[in-house]
C-alpha cells in the first residue's frame, strides 16, 4: 500500500499534536496534581486558646463595700495586650453563683490596648453605663474591678482608663472621676 502524499502530512500533524499534548501532560501536569509547597498547611500544633493561666478576678465581698480576689483560670494570651484582653473578657463575663460582680449585666468588651507608659485602655460597650445601678459605692466597685483585674495580674500595667463605645467618659454614674487612668487602690480590696 502506498501512502498518498496528503495522508503523510495528516499523520505527521496528528503525531506532532499528540507529542505536544504528552509533553504538556508530563511537564506541567504535576503542578496541578500537587499543591505548591508554599500553600501547604503546617503540621498541626497545640492551639493557643487551649492554654490557661491562673488570674485573680474581683467580685463584691459579703459586706458589699469591697472587692474580693478570686483565682480563676483565664485563657492564655500572647503578649501583655492580648493577655489583658483575655482577663477583662473573663472579668466582664457573668459570674457563677454565689459570686457577685460589680460589672453591669450585658457589658461587652470592645477592645483593650496598652500604651508605652503602662496605661491600659479598656473599651467596653454602652451597657456599662446604661445598666449601671448608680451610687458612689457601686461606681467605685465597678471601676476598681477593672483596674484591679489588670494591675493585680499584669505588673506592667500601672493605670487603667475606662472607655465606653470607644470614647472617654467623665463618670459612670455621676461620682467618680474617670477622665484619667485610675491607679490601683488597695483600700477597695478586702484582706
Amino acid at each position, binding site marked *: 500500500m502506498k501512502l498518498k502524499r496528503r495522508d503523510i502530512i495528516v499523520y505527521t500533524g496528528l503525531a506532532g499534536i499528540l507529542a505536544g499534548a504528552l509533553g504538556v501532560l508530563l511537564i506541567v501536569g504535576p503542578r496541578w496534581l500537587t499543591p505548591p509547597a508554599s500553600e501547604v498547611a503546617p503540621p498541626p500544633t497545640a492551639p493557643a486558646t487551649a492554654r490557661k493561666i491562673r488570674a485573680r478576678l474581683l467580685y*463584691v*465581698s*459579703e*459586706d*458589699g*463595700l469591697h472587692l474580693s480576689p478570686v483565682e480563676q483560670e483565664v485563657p492564655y494570651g500572647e503578649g501583655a495586650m492580648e493577655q489583658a484582653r483575655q482577663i477583662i473578657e473573663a472579668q466582664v463575663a457573668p459570674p457563677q453563683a454565689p459570686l*457577685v*460582680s*460589680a460589672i453591669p449585666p450585658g457589658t461587652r468588651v470592645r477592645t483593650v490596648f496598652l500604651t508605652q507608659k503602662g496605661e491600659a485602655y479598656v473599651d467596653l460597650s454602652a451597657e456599662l453605663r446604661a445598666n449601671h*445601678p*448608680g*451610687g*458612689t*459605692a*457601686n461606681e*467605685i*466597685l465597678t471601676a476598681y474591678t477593672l483596674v484591679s483585674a489588670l494591675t493585680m495580674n499584669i505588673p506592667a500595667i500601672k493605670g487603667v482608663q475606662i472607655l465606653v463605645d470607644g470614647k472617654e467618659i*467623665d*463618670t459612670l*454614674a*455621676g*461620682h*467618680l*472621676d*474617670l*477622665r*484619667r487612668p*485610675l*491607679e490601683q487602690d488597695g483600700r477597695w480590696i478586702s484582706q
Partner: protein
Amino acid sequence: MKIRRPSSAVYLLGPLLLASAVSGQAPTTGASLTILSREGRRPLPVVDVQGHQMAGLDDLSNLFQLTIREDSAANAVTVSYKTRTVVLTPDQSLASMSGGRLISLPAPLTRQGRRWLVPVEFISRALAPMYDTRVEFRPASRLVVVGDVRVPRITAQYEDSGGTLRITFEITPKAAPVITQDQNRLLLRVEADALDALFPPPPSQNGVMTAIRAVEPNTIVIELGPRFASYRTSTPVSSGAAAAIAIDLVTTAAPVAAAPVASVPEPPAVPATPLPVFGAPRPSIRTIVIDAGHGGDDPGVKGASGLTEKDVTLAVARRLRSTIENRLGIRVLMTRDDDARIDADARVSMANNNKADLFVSLHANGSPRPSARGAAIFSLGLDKVEEDARRQSQANREVLPVYGGGSREFSLVEWELAQASHIEESTAFAALVEQRLKDTAGLAAVSIVTAPMRSLAGANMPAISFEMGYLSNPEDEKLLRSAEFQNGIALAVTDAIVALRDRLDHGQAVPAAQ
C-alpha cells in the same frame, strides 16, 4: 380615734337615786384641760372639789363615746366603752374594771347636782386602759393627747454667763425646731401638732430676754430685751430620745442704761440683726451651696420600695437649707430646687460663680449587695498626676497687676483642680460632719473616704459629697424616707457648719481628719 360632738352623745341619764356626796362643799371652777386629737382641740371643763381636780362624766361621755348607767340597787355608776367597763361607787376611791382589775383614784365618785364628777386621774387610770386608741394625760401641761398626734414635751433651762444667756431646750421625742427672728422676738417653730411646754420664768434683770411662752399650735416665743444683740444656736449632746438645742442670746457690750455721757442721745432700739462692726474680720462662711444630687432623667439609685436618690437628696437639701437659714442666717443657694437634670460642671460653677464658702453635695448610696449600710462622707483624693499638678501650680505663683493699682499674687490652678487647694479644709469638715452624725438615730455607721470625686474636683472652696445611707439596703431606705431622719441629717450638717465657722472665725487651724 374620733371624738364625738355633744349632739351625738350617748348619755343615759338614769334615776337620781344616790344622795349627794358633796353637800356643804361648793365646787369651784378650775382651769379646763385641753383634749388634743386629729380633730383639733376641745376643752374639758374641770372643777375643784376639796382640793381635787374633777371632770364631769357627762363631758367625758360626749368626748369619748362612753355609755354611763346608774345602778340604784348596787349604788354604783357603770362607765362602758364598747365591751369594756369600769364600775365606780360614790363613797369609794377604788373602781372595778372589767376583768377583775381594781384601780385607785385620788378621790371617790362625786355628785354635783345632776352631774357625776370623777377625778381627772380617771382619764389615765381607767379611760386610757379601756380605750382602743392612745389616751395620754399630761397633768403638768393640762393636756389629754388622744390618738396619733405629735405633742413633744419641751423643757427649758437657763445659764447666764454674763455676756450670754444660754437657753437649752430639750424636746422629747426628737423634733427639729426652725428658728426665726421677728423684730424683738425669736420664734421657734417645732414640727409638731401641739407643744407640751413648761418653761421656768426667765432670769430677772438680765435685759436680754423678758418672757418666754408657747403659742398654739407649735411655736415658742422668746421676747427679747433691750440688751439683746444677736443669737446663735448649737446642738449639745442629748439623751437618746430627746433632741437638745441651745440658743445663746448675746448681750450688747454694756447695759443700755449705763450711757457714759448724759448728753448723748439715747441709742436707737436694738436692731433685729446686729450691725456690722467696721474693721471686724469678714465672717468665714457667708454663702453655702447645697447640691441635691442627680435629678430629671437621672434618678440615681433606686430603692427596693421605690425611693429614688434624686427625690431624697432634694428633700434633705430643702430641710438643710431651711435649718441653715433659720439658725445661722447664712445665705444658702441650691443647685436645683426641682426635679431637673444639672450637669456636674454646672453644679460647681454655681458655687464658684457665687463665691460660696462651702459646697455640700447630697447623695444616697448603692451597693451590689443589700448588706451594705451607713453613711459615708467623701472628700476629694488626688492621684499622683493631680498632686504633681497642684505642687507645680503652687510653685508657679505669679504677681499680676490688679484694677485700681498695686499687684496681687495669684496661684494659677487648672479649673478642674480647683478643689486641690481646699483639701485639708474639706477633709476637716468631713470629720466634723462625721462627729455630728454619730448621734443621729438609726444610722448604722459613718465613714470618711477620699476618692477622685468628679463632682468635687472643680469646687474652689471646701467641699464634701455626703452619702446619707444605702438605698440598696431596706432599713436604710426606710430611714432615708422618714422625716425624722432627714431632719436629723439636716441638724447634724448644720452643727458641723457651726463648728467649722467657729474654728475659722477664731483663726484656729482646721485639724485634718484622722
